[in-house]
């Protein structure tokens, strides 16, 4: 194989340089950030986007463990100083560190995820804010700059393994003195400060019959553990031997501040495309849903169109009736509204389509919506995500809408939509 000529070569060039003239590259899968409805609010740009497609590299980019040794001063060791040498340094004490060298692996491709905009990061992920707080400034990010890496077997793309921590611009990973680490008879391993958590769904993501699995933590060496007491507790969890770090379709990856969904190439073949979702919207609009108050035809927008008030549909969250904009039935104290169709009192929200196809567990009419944000999707999709617990804070969990990350409300977290059709 051809060695890299110098350390400044960007692994991204092969990705960004690709245009229509390249032959189609094999797709390993996709990483999609929960909380975005098809793109970032400010628009996808370069490596900072809501979704990252993992394509097979032209040349193998993976690395594998080579040798390890103890040094007194890791900063001056040969492996650390060599910008072409991948290595992980585990600081045990002020005067002792274990360095694990990594060598090139012709059988795997490596992809790295983190908050850093430096070139080793293939997918730049910033903290996700729920719902309409997307514009708020993040006080202090909790996502590691080099959060995790994924190594995909080039010959067996279904084997995509996730590891905590990523290599920096000098191809180094440092676990400081305070980081959780341990050494068994042979290998040394550790955890990142806030951890990389994974949750494999129980059952097949496609089809919508899977259940939420247990959240686990993945180590720097790729082993799987139960959760620590809290996000950055010193004591690691128990080893989980019957689970592993191979990503399956629908696996969730939580980086403390953002949650990613892994969709395998095979799973995506059974999922809707963006075009499919647009056809579903067209089908609903072709049925000419009506506002029973204004007697006007409602139009479900493909994008959230703040301007067009008259035709914008709203849903009453306690009953599911869909109507246009009007002022009747407003409770002056609570802001709740009484539904003209059934006189039920409750909140009202704008209806909009969930447009990120990766979040769909099946293909079909969007007859349900998340409560309280109003994102529409298929029944199975909505019910699936209403039962998925997403890490929240240092040790909590909550179900959220995947399209906007709003925590779900009400007994179920969703509502069945009731349209008035074809009244014209």
């Amino acid at each position, binding site marked *: 194989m051809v060695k890299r000529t110098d350390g400044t070569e960007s692994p991204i060039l092969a990705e960004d340089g690709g245009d229509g003239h390249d032959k189609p590259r094999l797709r390993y899968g996709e990483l999609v950030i929960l909380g975005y409805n098809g793109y970032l609010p400010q628009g996808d740009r370069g490596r900072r986007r809501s979704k990252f497609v993992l394509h097979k590299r032209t040349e193998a980019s993976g690395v594998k463990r080579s040798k390890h040794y103890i040094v007194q001063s890791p900063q001056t060791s040969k492996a650390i100083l060599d910008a072409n040498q991948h290595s992980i340094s585990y600081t045990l004490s002020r005067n002792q560190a274990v360095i694990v060298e990594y060598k090139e692996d012709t059988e795997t491709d490596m992809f790295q995820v983190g908050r850093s905009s430096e070139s080793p990061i293939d997918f730049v992920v910033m903290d996700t804010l729920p719902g309409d707080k997307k514009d708020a400034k993040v006080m202090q990010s909790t996502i590691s700059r080099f959060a995790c890496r994924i190594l995909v077997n080039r010959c067996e793309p279904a084997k995509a393994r996730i590891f905590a921590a990523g290599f920096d611009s000098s191809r180094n990973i440092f676990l400081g003195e305070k980081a959780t680490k341990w050494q068994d008879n042979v290998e040394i391993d550790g955890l990142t400060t806030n951890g990389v958590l994974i949750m494999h769904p129980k059952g097949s993501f496609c089809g919508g019959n899977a259940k939420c699995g247990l959240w686990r933590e993945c180590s720097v060496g790729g082993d799987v553990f139960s959760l620590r007491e809290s996000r950055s507790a010193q004591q690691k969890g128990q080893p989980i031997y019957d689970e592993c770090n191979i990503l399956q379709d629908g696996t969730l990856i939580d980086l403390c501040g953002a949650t990613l969904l892994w969709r395998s190439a095979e799973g995506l073949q059974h999922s809707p495309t963006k075009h499919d979702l647009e056809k579903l919207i067209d089908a609903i609009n072709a049925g000419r849903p009506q506002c*029973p*108050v*204004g*007697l*006007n035809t409602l139009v479900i927008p493909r994008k959230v169109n703040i301007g067009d008030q008259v035709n914008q549909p709203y849903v009453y969250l306690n009953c599911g009736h869909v109507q246009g904009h*009007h*002022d*009747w*039935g407003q409770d002056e104290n609570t802001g709740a509204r009484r539904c*003209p*169709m059934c*006189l039920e009192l409750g909140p009202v929200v704008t209806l909009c389509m969930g447009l990120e196809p990766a979040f769909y567990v099946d293909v079909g009419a969007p007859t349900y919506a998340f409560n309280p944000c109003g994102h529409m999707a298929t029944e199975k999709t909505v019910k699936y995500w209403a039962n998925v617990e997403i890490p929240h804070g240092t040790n909590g969990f909550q179900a959220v809408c995947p399209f906007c990350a709003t925590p779900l409300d009400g007994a179920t977290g969703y509502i069945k939509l009731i349209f008035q059709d074809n009244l014209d």
Partner: protein
Amino acid sequence: MSSLPRRIIKETQRLMQEPVPGINAIPDENNARYFHVIVTGPNDSPFEGGVFKLELFLPEDYPMSAPKVRFITKIYHPNIDRLGRICLDVLKDKWSPALQIRTILLSIQALLSAPNPDDPLANDVAELWKVNEAEAIRNAREWTQKYAVED
């Protein structure tokens, strides 16, 4: 005059195009919010054979508030008084903007089939309806013949 809300235009068009059986509602030539209404007495009711004239007016904030509806033809009914005012929940606290002219008129027609003497507007009529229903029904039939049937 102010422009007519789209909903009223649409309702009026639909009333013209798809009439409700037994109900006729025509907008006034000079006031598109004022409707001349005819409701025929339901079969198998003491009002059968009668043709009852009503007036219906859509207030400024319709459909946020209910239409004003009144019988012009005299009618012997426990829920309709001598001035033609109608005691019907959907015209008052149970009004909803999802209701329409057609549904209101259908509700009034249904009220003729099912008088409710326990929620009266005409107390004397309601009283008789409770103590001597046969005589009350006979009175209703006589009033229908006298006031609601063209000779």
